[in-house]
């Protein structure tokens, strides 16, 4: 049991951002989710019993649910503003990688929620099964089953996606890695 050191939380930002993107399915929602998670965690002093990253995962999951509830209470019409600049400055530097990352995160975000949380916690955030189980309030055996099935679906999606030509950026990347 120890006090959470705000200064040390910055080191988890990149991985938390990737995890948030997997949960939300979009870069912009991921940014908001991460920012809100940090704002909530830092709102008052915290005492933690687990690994910092596992603690942040739990906080992010709670924030994610909270945002879903808020969004569901707000009826929305389709957005019609067409004049927003679509440019993503990062995509210009490495379009292949941006596309690849986006495709993978999109695939994760389309998984059933339980599967999505399990694969994000273990394979994106790097938590152990035990840490993931604690962060997600589930049994370890349940986490492993969800993880197995989530990975299976992701693998099938990238293996079987009917892309033309060379296939998706993520699939190309997968092929390269396997050929090394």
């Amino acid at each position: 049991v120890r006090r959470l050191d705000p200064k040390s939380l910055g080191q988890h930002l990149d991985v938390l951002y990737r995890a948030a993107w997997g949960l939300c399915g979009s870069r912009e929602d991921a940014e908001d989710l991460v920012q809100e998670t940090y704002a909530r965690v830092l709102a008052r002093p915290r005492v933690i019993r687990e690994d910092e990253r596992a603690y942040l995962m739990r906080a992010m999951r709670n924030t994610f649910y909270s945002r879903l509830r808020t969004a569901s209470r707000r009826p929305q019409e389709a957005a019609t503003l067409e004049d927003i600049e679509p440019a993503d400055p990062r995509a210009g530097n490495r379009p292949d990688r941006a596309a690849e990352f986006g495709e993978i995160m999109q695939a994760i975000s389309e998984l059933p929620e339980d599967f999505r949380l399990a694969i994000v916690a273990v394979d994106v955030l790097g938590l152990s099964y035990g840490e993931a189980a604690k962060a997600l309030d589930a049994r370890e055996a349940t986490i492993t089953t969800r993880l197995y099935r989530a990975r299976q679906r992701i693998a099938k999606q990238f293996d079987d996606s009917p892309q033309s030509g060379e296939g998706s950026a993520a699939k190309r990347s997968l092929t390269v890695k396997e050929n090394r």
Partner: protein
Amino acid sequence: MTDQSQLPEAELAALADGSLPADRRAQLRARIEASPELAAALGEQERTVTMLRALDEPAPAGLRDRVREMTDGAAQTRGPRRAARWRRSLFVPAATALAVAVAALVVLLSGGGSSSPTVLQTAHLALAAATSPAPSEDPAHRDLLRLRVGGIAFPYYGRTAGWEATGARTDTIGGRRVVTVFYTARGHRIGYAIVSGAPLPAGGGTLVTRGDVTYWLQHAHGAELITWRQAGHTCVIAGHRVIPRTLLALAFAEEIQAARATS
């Protein structure tokens, strides 16, 4: 067709990511060698693990800055107790020096002797991180949020334009309260700030007049910003990578909504 119940799913998952205990590995490997179905299942697990563990997309610089601002702020307000005792002995001179420095900064940034915030200072806040959750929708006025400054309610753009309120912050500059609500849509973020009290001096940039209202369009802090006066207060909308036409449309929408709310 694979029968999921016949597969040692947990062990295959653990073997793929290296977390299966050594004493189980050899036994499972032997089973896999004898079963094409198990080998295929393990292959799927391994491919996904390889793909996900290779991801290295960093967080955007803007998010990094906002998080650093939050963690630095929290760390400063919560030092260890030993440090707190040490700080107490230096509190009065340090606080005095800080107050003088902040006052000097405000005077410098405001470009004169006035302690009122400037439009650029307000825009800076509109581009900063949120420090509190977004206000909720006003049930009495569906286009407004339940947050007002000097009688002006912040707009709710979610229904009409797709910009959801995602956070807020309140600051005080020169004794003036500056309240900001942040909105996001399609990966873009804007801040809408209202300054309490008398309107701020505004000028420069491009002028757009609509009815009796003049809007100043400027580029500052690497962002676009629009300033106008409403009910005797200064309002500023600012955003990175959002074109002025979008900001102007939102400012017009606000003007229309405010007129509805007060009519």
